[in-house]
């Protein structure tokens, strides 16, 4: 159903994607503050703070407890806001990946992804924008909607689109069979859809939805690159590793010799996965502040990272700095690299293994150019268990698609639950119909008479 009124809470990234150092996730609506509060860990909860104030804190995934982003969050209570509703803006300084992740989390909090131009539309409908601007608002809605629809539907790549159509066909089959049972109870040629049958088929659909969702992360990676932080103590070989990866993989090198780079980001392609390397190299490290700065720089790089490559000096004993770095990684996927295997072993392997806690450990010698292929293999396998099968799998990367797929998943789960509880088939049917509708939004097919067409093309009905 079309959302015309400002009853629900909406959110979107309100800064141009990929531009600017800060990206803002904006929420607007009656539950904006509560929704943001569920993700926000700061000194105070956002519902307590005065209006029009900004607060430092972390955005935490309530499911895993993992910190996604450090952020400044501004809280603006109605009516003195752009939309005249409660508005929360989460200022993220991380890359696109983490901003998207924040938006995704927000959308899990009973918040809907804003339609194009919807903030402006709300501003207008709530009387914020005056008459003279009304026309501009209409133009905006038109332009943005058309563009966004083209883009959104264009983004449904061949494979994903095929998969969604397949799923919808499966659902339509169930729906049509149930409808025939209902509208033509005496018709003897249609399969009787029992609760168990419906449940089995729904579970099969859910499995496929789950599979698509599980590729969502990979899809993002394929699209945006896997932010990879190379961290380690000074002189452990971070720059060499970076240069190796860059050199080997012919990515664009923006390295200007002799220039101090704060953090450089370069793209390399490892087994089909674009890696966006965030390096902490090039830091002029004075003797006494070495450890301190190294850790601090690493900390910054880590915030953005989807993957951490932690370099440990094979030749030397573990230092306090190394240990600190292990703690810093937290739950970010990481590979532990023992460099300088050309030298004699000084590090305690036991201790490293203990700290690694099950993470992969790869031994390399950058000097002798040994172990690099193995490292690349490890990186790839960490994200794609069976290698990259980009052409056969449907990868979802679009936030809108992910949000809709999650909604579809929850709808089909309701159907399964209904069947489990022994509710009549026509109840579970309500959820299946909803799943079908939601998936239709992804591929832009919301025509509602398909079901009736299906009914009459498939079954020989009538007197």
């Amino acid at each position, binding site marked *: *159903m079309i959302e*015309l009124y400002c009853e629900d809470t909406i959110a979107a990234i309100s800064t141009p994607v990929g531009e600017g150092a800060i990206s803002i996730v904006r929420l607007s609506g009656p539950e904006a503050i509560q929704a943001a509060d569920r993700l926000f860990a700061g000194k105070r909860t956002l519902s307590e703070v005065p209006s029009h104030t900004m607060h430092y804190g972390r955005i935490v995934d309530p499911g895993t407890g993992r910190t996604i982003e450090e952020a400044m969050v501004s809280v603006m209570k109605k009516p003195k806001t752009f939309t005249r509703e409660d508005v929360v803006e989460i200022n993220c300084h991380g890359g696109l990946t983490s901003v998207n992740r924040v938006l995704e989390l927000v959308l899990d909090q009973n918040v809907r992804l804003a339609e194009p131009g919807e903030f402006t539309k709300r501003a207008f409908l709530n009387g914020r924008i005056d008459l003279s601007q*009304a*026309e501009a608002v*209409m133009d905006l809605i038109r332009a943005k909607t058309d563009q966004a629809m083209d883009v959104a539907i264009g983004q449904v790549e061949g494979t994903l689109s095929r998969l969604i159509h397949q799923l919808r066909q499966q659902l339509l089959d169930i729906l049509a069979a149930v*409808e025939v049972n*209902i509208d033509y109870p005496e018709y003897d040629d249609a399969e009787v859809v029992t609760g168990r049958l419906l449940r089995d088929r729904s579970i099969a659909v859910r499995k496929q939805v789950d599979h698509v969702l599980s590729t969502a992360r990979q899809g993002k990676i394929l699209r945006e690159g896997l932010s990879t932080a190379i961290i380690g103590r000074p002189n452990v070989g971070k720059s060499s590793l970076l240069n190796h990866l860059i050199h080997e993989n012919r990515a664009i090198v923006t390295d200007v010799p002799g220039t101090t780079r704060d953090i450089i980001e370069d793209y390399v392609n490892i087994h089909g996965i674009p890696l966006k390397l965030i390096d902490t190299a090039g830091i002029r490290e004075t003797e006494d502040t070495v450890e301190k700065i190294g850790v601090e720089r690493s900390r910054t790089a880590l915030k953005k990272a989807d993957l951490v490559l932690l370099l440990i000096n094979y030749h030397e004993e573990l230092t306090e700095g190394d240990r600190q770095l292990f703690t810093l990684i937290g739950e970010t996927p990481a590979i532990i690299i023992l460099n300088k295997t050309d030298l004699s072993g000084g590090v305690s392997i036991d201790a490293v293994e203990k700290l690694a806690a099950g993470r992969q450990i790869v031994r390399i010698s950058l000097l002798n150019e040994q172990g690099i292929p193995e490292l690349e293999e490890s990186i790839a396998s960490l994200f794609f268990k069976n290698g990259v099968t980009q052409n056969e799998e449907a990868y979802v990367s679009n936030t809108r698609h992910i949000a809709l797929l999650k909604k579809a998943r929850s709808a089909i789960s309701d159907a399964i639950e209904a069947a489990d509880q022994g509710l009549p088939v026509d109840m579970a049917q*309500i959820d299946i119909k909803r799943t079908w509708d939601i998936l239709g939004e992804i591929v832009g097919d919301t025509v509602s008479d398909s079901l009736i067409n299906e009914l009459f093309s498939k079954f020989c009905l009538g007197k």
Partner: protein
Amino acid sequence: MKGYQAGTYDVIVVGAGHAGVEAGLASARMGAKTLMLTISLEGVAFMPCNPSVGGPAKGVVVREIDALGGEMGHNIDKTYIQMRMLNTRKGPAVRALRAQADKQLYQRAMKKTIEDTENLTLRQGMVERLIVEDGVCRGVVVATGAEYRAKAVVLTTGVYLKGKIIIGELQYESGPNNMQASVSLSEHLKELGFDLVRFKTGTPPRVNGRTIDYSKTEIQPGDEEPLAFSYDTKEFIKDQIPCWLTYTNDETHKIINENLDRSPIYSGAIVGTGPRYCPSIETKIVRFSDKSRHQLFLEPEGKETKEVYVDGLSTSMPEEIQRKMLATIPGLEQVEMMRPGYAIEYDAMVPTQLWPSLETKKIEGLFTAGQINGTSGYEEAAGQGLMGGINAARKALGKEPVILDRAQAYIGVLIDDLVTKGTKEPYRLLTSRAEYRLLLRHDNADLRLTELGHKIGLIREERYQRFLVKKQLIEQERTRLAVTTVKPSEEAAELLEQRGAAPIYEPLKADRLLKRPELNYHDVASLLPDNGTAVPDDVGEQVEIQVKYEGYINKQLQQVEKMKRMEKKKIPQDLDYSVIDGIATEARQKLDKVRPISVGQASRVSGVNPSDIAILLVYLEQGKLARKTG
């Protein structure tokens, strides 16, 4: 023909089929002086096709008609030969009654009701023209020269408009079952500027039951327990008559296939669009050639006749072929055909020319209802007839129209579909056309509509009071279940085990227990301390459904809330869509044609996208703003 002034009425209903009788009765009962004109008095409430009323969705419509004070429920309850509840093993949302009717009795009973009704005149006469003055319908002109004046006119012409019967190579102008067709009126409607379409429907042959060998067929009896469509019915017909099931076979199909060149459908003789859900046997065999047999139900047409309706064998093949087909069917080898099946083509209105009140947009005071609006089925016709009659009477009495929404009634779904989307084939109600079918149940039609029926003056006070008592009992019983606790006891353990339900170890609220699929209301009630007042069965049923499906019902209610807000946003009838720049051209044309009365209705017009609606809304707000500031 020399004309004469024949009288003045509040409302004139043209036609006395299933739409016409409801329109006439409703109008008269609401206090409007009403005239019903019909080509033949023998055609009152005639069932030219199957002898049955009800079925999924349609049966719910009959209940809705009854709850609003219509007649169909009463009439079928007096005249059925068999009644069944369908879909009993499915959820309450899709249960429905279906009755086999005694066709002649049905007609006679309805005619008598009409004759007995005050304010209502039933007269034979063929209307040829409307009296239209300044774009307002003021009356009708009958072939005899009689000119009747009225404040509102309801056309319920069924398949009579330029009706044409086709049987193989034979074609002739005719209404249903060789009644006289109406030709002038159809031409006149075109002259007035209405768009008409050509639709087609059909019916199977009738055979003499004395010549059927029932031993080769399967019996299909009615339900033992007493059932009724009307909430008023207290007496039930006991000696029911069964139907019988048989099948077509390869031999039947071979005969049809060999003679397809003589089938009017495939020879091109039929131009009208037929309904997909009611295909002829020749269509079934061509389209589903892999099916080796098709079901045929042998349905008696009444107690006082041997005529049997061969349900499933609708056909327009030549008579000769029809007889050959019949002879191949088990049980019908020796059968005597009494009437051949036929196809009938007719003119219908493009229903998007109507407001949701069923008044035409072009001519004020003119309403159309029933098959003329592109539907098929007695129930669909009756539902529209009732609403057309109500709104014509309200028009005549200077009142606002009554419009049912999609969450209120199947009748609302039906009319909204017609006037918003139009139809490319004869329209039939299906449960899947309703978004909120869990709310549009057979069992709660009274709860949904009695209040309204009473308000508009069609539900009598006595019945209304009865309804209020029932409503109150339901509330009380729900409260009782919500506050009363069932404690683990031997009695409870025994019952739960009997029903195959898990035992309870801790005290549990009664309504929680009722949510268990294994238990019904009576089970749970039996475990409660007796409060001295056993509730009637229909109250218990209501409580059970409301408690058991609360989650789903609430979900749908939330959706309905949203929908209603959209419906409340009215669009001025004179809105000029051409000045709203942002709306896409296709959407603008469609909106201009349909002229939806609300943003909700606009959003259902095909070809109108969410962005068009957003822009429309902004435009409407802007207008409000302009009026405020200007």
